[in-house]
């Protein structure tokens, strides 16, 4: 698949004039909206901490595999 084909597939998701809500568009794209809902219950600092924890886990897994 070339980059033009990918752009063509993604084009509908860039639009905001298709009558769909942002949630509908994101769900159709395959985004798990429950993850966003969970994040919105956190403070910005807690979200940053969560990002760091996930990064630490990824790093640990990568180091374990190497």
């Amino acid at each position, binding site marked *: 698949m070339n980059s033009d084909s990918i752009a063509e597939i993604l084009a509908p998701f860039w639009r905001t004039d298709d009558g769909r809500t942002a949630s509908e568009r994101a769900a159709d*794209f395959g985004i798990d909206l429950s993850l966003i809902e969970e994040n919105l219950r956190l403070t*910005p600092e807690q979200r940053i901490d969560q*990002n760091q924890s996930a990064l630490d886990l990824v790093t640990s897994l990568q180091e374990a595999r190497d």
Partner: protein
Amino acid sequence: MENLKNLVVQLGKSDCRFVIVGGFGVAASGSSLLTRDVDVACDMSPENLSRAWQALEQLHPVHRMTPARLPFTRKQAESGTLKNLYLATDLGQIDLLGEIKGIGSFDECLKNSEPVVIDGTAIRILTLDALILAKRAMGRPKDLHAVLELEVIRERRQKT
């Protein structure tokens, strides 16, 4: 050890004028996407870059785009010639950018930012609307996921 939060706080505790843009701001806004670096819009004046250098010096900043990964020096910071900086530090990667596509100069970013307290330090982050504008302006496939999540977050905020 990579620690983006401490990297941002280190810069935030200095008098350096900057605004968080990009993935770190997207994550702080509630997106589920992970980020492995920090992008900031920065006042690229020699005076301000000198402050950035002082804040980052102990983290051994190097120009990560150069093959030899040469150190970022005070002399360079104060040269008045830098438009963007792409650094690697002991705490992770940070890009200091003079202009943000879709928003504009550092001053425009500052106007479109809001404070967020991280580890007791007030850090300015692009507003949700500005993050969406910037990501839309980038227009890469990887930006689309962030745009879609940020627009869901905006929709949720508008409902409450």
